[in-house]
């Protein structure tokens, strides 16, 4: 394609608060811009987030649409689809991007069907070769990747949160401007929001404050083996035992101990992943750790791609051995 790639970046607002992770969509735009000229419009939903829309327009200097209307303080999917249809017919974007959050994973396919466009979910990387753009995403918990050329427009991309964070957006910087306010009216409302349940407060050492985290996954096999992780954790000061999703789903540990997209984000000095496969949802929550040690029987487990030290062993046997060796030394 010769012309500019027109990007519509769709932010999200939950309970009137703009989700700042939405700004990672700008990092994605910056990654694309390295290979192809881009034209950006950023959508900030909700009247309560109008102030934030104005700041983004002013400081980043891009076109911002401050979207107002029923349900939009919560990026309600019904109103958002309506808004996306209207804005798309006007702006004719090539790529509509949103975060692959609960909201974004819902909205993406709805918009795709409404526009008769394909959707590519949980995008982790983009490539531009010549004038061809492609997106890369995970299959099988990251053990394989899928690369899809983006050559039929419009296309909907939902972007894995955290995947593009850190890419320099300086090149996108434009002149300060005013956001355009847009009202969405007359949408067919079917998503009846009734309230919000906040995250439960927890007891004991919070995993996000721990300096050493011993984390267990499905590879633990049974709940009794958690005791081994507790025992290993006691060898370190300021330590805590955490888990990946399957462990908390099984009720072995409370949800407050879960690391990942739907749990906590941690960055301890040592993160030891025991029997964790390393799904991107989990990796998102721990990739900021300073030292990562992974123990897994599967040599191709995705967790090894983010580990500093990879140990191909059964985690239960290995942790028992490690505890024994540590005791012998002390």
């Amino acid at each position, binding site marked *: 394609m010769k012309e500019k790639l027109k990007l519509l970046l769709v932010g999200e607002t939950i309970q009137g608060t703009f989700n700042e992770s939405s700004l990672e969509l700008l990092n994605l735009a910056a990654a694309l811009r390295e290979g192809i000229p881009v034209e950006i419009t950023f959508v900030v939903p909700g009247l309560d987030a109008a102030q934030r829309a104005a700041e983004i327009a002013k400081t980043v200097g891009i076109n911002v649409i401050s979207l107002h209307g029923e349900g939009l303080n919560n990026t309600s999917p019904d109103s958002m689809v309506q808004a996306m249809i209207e804005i798309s017919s006007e702006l004719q974007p090539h790529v509509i991007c949103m975060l692959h959050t*609960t909201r974004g994973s819902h909205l993406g396919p709805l918009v795709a069907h409404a526009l008769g466009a394909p959707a590519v979910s949980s995008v982790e990387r983009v490539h531009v070769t010549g004038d061809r753009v492609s997106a890369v995403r995970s299959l099988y918990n990251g053990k394989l990747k899928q690369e899809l050329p983006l050559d039929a427009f419009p296309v909907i991309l939902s972007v894995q949160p955290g995947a593009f964070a850190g890419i320099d957006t300086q090149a996108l910087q434009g002149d300060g401007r005013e956001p355009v306010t847009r009202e969405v009216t007359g949408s067919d409302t079917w998503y009846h*929001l009734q309230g919000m349940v906040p995250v439960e407060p927890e007891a004991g050492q919070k995993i996000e404050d721990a300096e050493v985290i011993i984390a267990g996954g499905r590879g633990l096999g049974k709940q009794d083996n958690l005791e081994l992780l507790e025992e290993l954790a006691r060898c370190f000061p300021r330590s805590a035992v955490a888990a990946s999703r399957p462990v908390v789903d099984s009720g072995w540990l409370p949800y407050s101990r879960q690391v990942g997209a739907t749990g906590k984000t941690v960055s301890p000095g040592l993160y030891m992943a025991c029997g964790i496969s390393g799904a991107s949802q989990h990796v998102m929550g721990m990739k900021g750790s300073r030292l990562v040690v992974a123990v897994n029987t599967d040599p191709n487990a995705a967790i090894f791609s983010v580990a500093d030290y990879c140990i191909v062993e059964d985690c239960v046997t290995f942790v028992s*051995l490690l505890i024994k060796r540590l005791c012998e030394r002390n």
Partner: protein
Amino acid sequence: MPGSQVKNITSVRFILDLLMVLCYMCTMKILVCVKQVIDTESPLVVDQDAAWVRDDGKVARRMNRYDEYALEEAVRIREEFPDTVIDVITMGPEGAGAVALKGLEKGADHAVHLRTGSGGYLPPGFIASEMAKVAGDRDYQLVITGFMSEDCMHAQVGPLLASMLGIPSAVAVVQQTVDTGGGSIEVACELEGGARELVGLELPALVTVQTGINTPRYPKLSDVLRAQDQEIEVMDVDDGSVKAAMEGCPYRLLYPPEGARGVVMEGTAEEKADRLIEILHEHSVL
């Protein structure tokens, strides 16, 4: 007289509404979408065309875990409302019939297998549209799918299917309460960081469930035996439409970049443990 006509229409509507409410109270039809996936622990080798995982006979196949939670949730609804009828639907080659059977073993009353000529990747839009063709005229009050599949991880079939059927949807549901009398469902959806959003949807509706919404049971032996005698409704998917869908969705599979990997420790388990202790000392975490 126009007045009595209005009155007649009003009473007819009232009766119709009453019948609908009674109907909702009597039977509720649920559709659960299930997928057969290659076990994520299997060694995964990309095939020659970089199109899918090579089947060398060593890969194990099973039901997508998210869908097990979806089916369990349907079974729980039926326990509460005994007149509920549960259908499962799956799409895939001949061998995917095993998952349709598994659905019956786990408690579905009826199974539909949309049979494709060969195995491999299918774009989510195609899966959803084929399922929508079947679901469209079968009057399901509730459609339940897993939040995503473990192999393709798109998380698209659920919302796409809802959109194609023109019904409300909610995703990443971790709790639900059906009010069949009122024709609605109340759900809690999991947002990032563990917060939950409470949402009401009018039926018919579609929900995609997150893992942890329940604890899926192992099927009872009597249900396993009963399932063997049940017929699976097989509908062949046109090869031409599969081909067209695949041509409309070019892609290739890759392995993750090797360079990202850390140091793979060698030696016996004891040697690895000793080396790890040294490393932890070097990094001052011990």
